[in-house]
C-alpha cells in the first residue's frame, strides 16, 4: 500500500523540480493525445516547443511574437502573485485588464487627433487608474463589508465585458467607421501607437513594463518590509496582526497593485498589438495569467519563465493547428494539462510517498 505522509517542511527540491516534471508529463500525455488524433506526436511536440523559436520558416516572425504574447501575461501575473502570496485572491484581472484598456484608450481618443508626445503617458496613467479603480470595488467591499473578493472580482469581469461591448459599439466607436463597432485604430495614429521600440523584436513598452515589474516584485519580496508583511499575512494571518500589520491596508495594496498592473497591460495591448477597442478585445489574458502565476510558483523570476512558456504553447499550438491539422480544442486541452500536472506534482512538495507496512492481524 502506498500512502502520503506530510513533510515537516516543504521539500525545496520538489518545489524547484515540479514545474519541470509537469512540463515533461504534459509532453508525454499530450503526445499520446496527439497520436490518438492521428498526428505524429514527436512532430507535434516539436512544432509546439521548438518551431516557434528555431524553425527557419516561422521563427523570424514568431520569436518576437513570443514577447508580444508573454508581455501582458507576465505583467498581470506579477500583480496577481503579490495578492496570492497574501492569500488575497483576485480572480478578476480580466475585468481590470478591460477597464484599463477602456479608460486609457478613452483618455487618448478624447484628444484625437493631437500628436502630442504626452498622450501616451497620459493614457498609461488612465489605464493604470482604470484597472486600479475596478480592483478597488472588491477591495472596499471586502474591507468594509467582508464580502468574498473571489466572487466579487470574478463577477466584475462580466460587468466589464458588457461595458466593453457598449464602448466598442457606442461611446468609443470610430465616428468614421460607418456605424460598425470598434474604436479608431491606434496603429494609424503616429505618436500614440505603442509600436515596436526596435524593429522586428516584438519589444513594445508593455514588454519593457513587464520586465520592470519582475524586477520590482523581486525587490519588493526580498528587500522591502511591505513584501515581508504580505508574505506574513499569507502564511500566518494571526501572527501578522499581532506584529502590527494592518490587514485592510494589505488588501487595498494587493488588489490595487494587481488591478493597476492588469489595467496597464490592457492599455499597452489596446494601443499596441490589438490597436483598437473591439467587442472581443479581451482574449483571456487575465485568466491565463492566473495559471502563469502558479506555474511560476508566485516567484517573479518563475513568472517570467512561465509567461514565456505559456506564450510558447500558444504560438506553437497555432502552428500545430496550421501545419498538422491538430484541432484547436486539443491545444487548449494540452495547456490545461500543464496546470493539472503542476498541481499534481506539487503535492510532493508538502507530502512524500511512503510504502506502508502491511498491518499484522
Amino acid at each position, binding site marked *: 500500500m502506498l500512502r502520503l505522509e506530510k513533510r515537516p517542511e516543504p521539500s525545496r527540491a520538489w518545489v524547484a523540480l515540479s514545474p519541470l516534471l509537469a512540463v515533461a508529463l504534459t509532453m508525454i500525455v499530450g503526445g499520446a493525445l496527439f497520436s*490518438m*488524433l*492521428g*498526428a*505524429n506526436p514527436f*512532430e507535434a511536440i516539436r512544432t509546439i516547443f521548438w518551431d516557434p523559436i528555431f524553425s527557419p*520558416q*516561422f521563427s523570424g*516572425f*514568431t520569436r518576437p*511574437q513570443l514577447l*508580444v*504574447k508573454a508581455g501582458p501575461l507576465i505583467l498581470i501575473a506579477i500583480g496577481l502573485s503579490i495578492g496570492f502570496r497574501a492569500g488575497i485572491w483576485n480572480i478578476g484581472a480580466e475585468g481590470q485588464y478591460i477597464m484599463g484598456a477602456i479608460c486609457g484608450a478613452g483618455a487618448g481618443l478624447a484628444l484625437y487627433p493631437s500628436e502630442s508626445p504626452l498622450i501616451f503617458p497620459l493614457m498609461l496613467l488612465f489605464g493604470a487608474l482604470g484597472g486600479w479603480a475596478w480592483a478597488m470595488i472588491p477591495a472596499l467591499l471586502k474591507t468594509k463589508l467582508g464580502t468574498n473578493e473571489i466572487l466579487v472580482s470574478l463577477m466584475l469581469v462580466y460587468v466589464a*465585458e*458588457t461595458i466593453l*461591448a*457598449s464602448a466598442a*459599439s*457606442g*461611446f468609443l*466607436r470610430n465616428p468614421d467607421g*460607418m*456605424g*460598425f*463597432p*470598434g474604436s479608431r*485604430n491606434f*496603429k494609424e495614429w503616429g505618436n500614440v501607437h505603442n509600436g515596436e521600440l526596435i524593429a522586428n523584436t516584438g519589444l513594445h513598452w508593455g514588454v519593457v513594463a513587464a520586465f520592470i515589474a519582475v524586477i520590482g516584485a523581486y525587490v519588493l519580496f526580498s528587500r522591502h518590509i511591505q513584501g515581508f508583511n504580505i508574505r506574513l499575512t499569507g502564511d500566518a494571518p494571526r501572527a501578522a496582526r499581532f506584529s502590527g500589520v494592518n490587514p485592510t491596508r494589505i488588501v487595498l495594496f494587493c488588489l490595487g497593485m494587481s488591478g493597476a498592473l492588469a489595467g496597464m497591460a490592457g492599455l499597452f*495591448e489596446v494601443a*499596441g*498589438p*490589438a*490597436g*483598437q477597442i*473591439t*467587442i*472581443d*478585445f*479581451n*482574449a483571456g489574458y487575465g485568466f491565463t495569467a492566473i495559471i502563469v502565476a502558479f506555474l511560476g510558483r508566485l516567484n517573479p523570476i518563475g513568472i517570467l519563465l512561465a509567461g514565456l512558456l505559456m506564450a510558447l504553447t500558444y*504560438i506553437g499550438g*497555432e*502552428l500545430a*493547428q*496550421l*501545419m*498538422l*491539422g*491538430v*484541432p*484547436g*480544442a486539443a491545444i487548449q486541452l494540452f495547456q490545461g494539462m500543464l496546470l493539472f500536472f503542476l498541481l499534481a506534482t506539487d503535492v510532493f512538495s508538502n507530502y512524500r510517498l511512503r510504502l506502508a507496512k502491511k498491518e499484522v492481524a
Partner: protein
Amino acid sequence: MKRRTLLAAVAAAATLTGASAWAEAEVTAGFIYIGTPGDGGWTYEHDQSRRKMEAHFDGKVKTIFQENVPESADAERAITQMAIAGADIIFTTSFGYMDPTLAVAEKFPNVKFEHATGYKRSDNVSTYSARFYEGRAVQGHIAGHMTKTNKIGYIASFPIPEVIRGINSAYIHAKKVNPDVEFSVVWAYTWFDPAKEADAARALIENGADVILQHTDSTAPQAAAKEAGNVITFGQASDMADYAPHPRVSSIIDNWAPYYIARVQAVLDGSWESVDTWDGIDTGMVEIGEITDAVPAEVKESALAMVEAIRTGEYSPFTGPLNKQDGSAWLAEGEVADLGTLAGMSFYVEGITDEIPN
C-alpha cells in the same frame, strides 16, 4: 464520434503526405474561422464550402484552416502565420478580422486576401458578403402569418449594420401581413454562445413570443423552442435541419462554395483582382431552406412567391413607403433603398420599439 474520426482522418492525411502535398498543390487556400466547424451555423457553412471548393479542384488546391481565432491581436498573428506557411489566398471569415487582414495584406503583397462582411479593401484585399436581409424578408413574412401571440422574439448578436438590416427586413415583412405584430430584441453580444443563446430564447418565450428569429450561430435557440413546444424557429446561416419540421420551419443558408471556387480559380488563372461582392438569392449565395409542412400551404406558397420575386429582381425587401423609427421619412412610395445606405444601416424602421444599444 463522427467529427472526431473525421478530424483524425484529416490529421492523419496531413501527416502521412507531409510536405509533399504542399508541393503538389498549385495553390494553397487558407481560412481563418471565428468558431469551430462544429458550431452548426456560420463557421460550419464556411467549412463546408471550403471542403466543396477543395473537392472541386481535385488536388490542385490544398486548404488549411485555423479555428477559434479571436477578433483581437491574435487574429493578426494567425493570419501572418498562415501567409508564412505558404497560403496564396486567405479567407478571413468574420467582421472583426477587418483591420488585422489589411495590416497583414500590406506585409504580403503577393498573397490575396478575402475578408467576409467588411468594408475596407486594398489592392490585395477583397470583401465579400451575402444579402442575408433578403432571407430575413421571407422569414418575417412567414413569422407574421404564423404568430398567434403577435409577439416575435429576435436574438441579435452585435449592433452592426448587417444585424440591424436583418431586424428591419424581418419586421417590415411581418408587419405587412400582420399589423399587430411586435418585435422584442435581445442583444446577446456574441456570435456563438449556446448557453447565452438558450437563455435569450427562453426569456423571449416566457414573455409570450411564439416565433424566435436568431442572428447567432448555434442551435441552442432551436433546442429551447423545441422544449417549449408551441414555438417556431428558423435555421440561421446553416439549414439546422435536425430541428425540422418543427420548431425549425425554414432557414437561411449561406452558400459560399461558388464564390470560393470562383476566387481560387482566379488565383489559379492569375486573374484575381480586388472586388467587393454582395450577392443574394439571385446568385445562390443566400438560399432559403425547405419550408416545412408546419407552415400552412398558402403561406408557404406566398413565401415562395416572394423568394422568386427577389430572385428575379422584381422585388427588393427595402421598398418604400418606409419611415425611420423616429417617424422621419426614409423611402417614398416605390423607392428602393440604395446599397450604400443599406451597407451602413444604423437605424430602425418605424414601428420597432427596441432601441439600438450604444
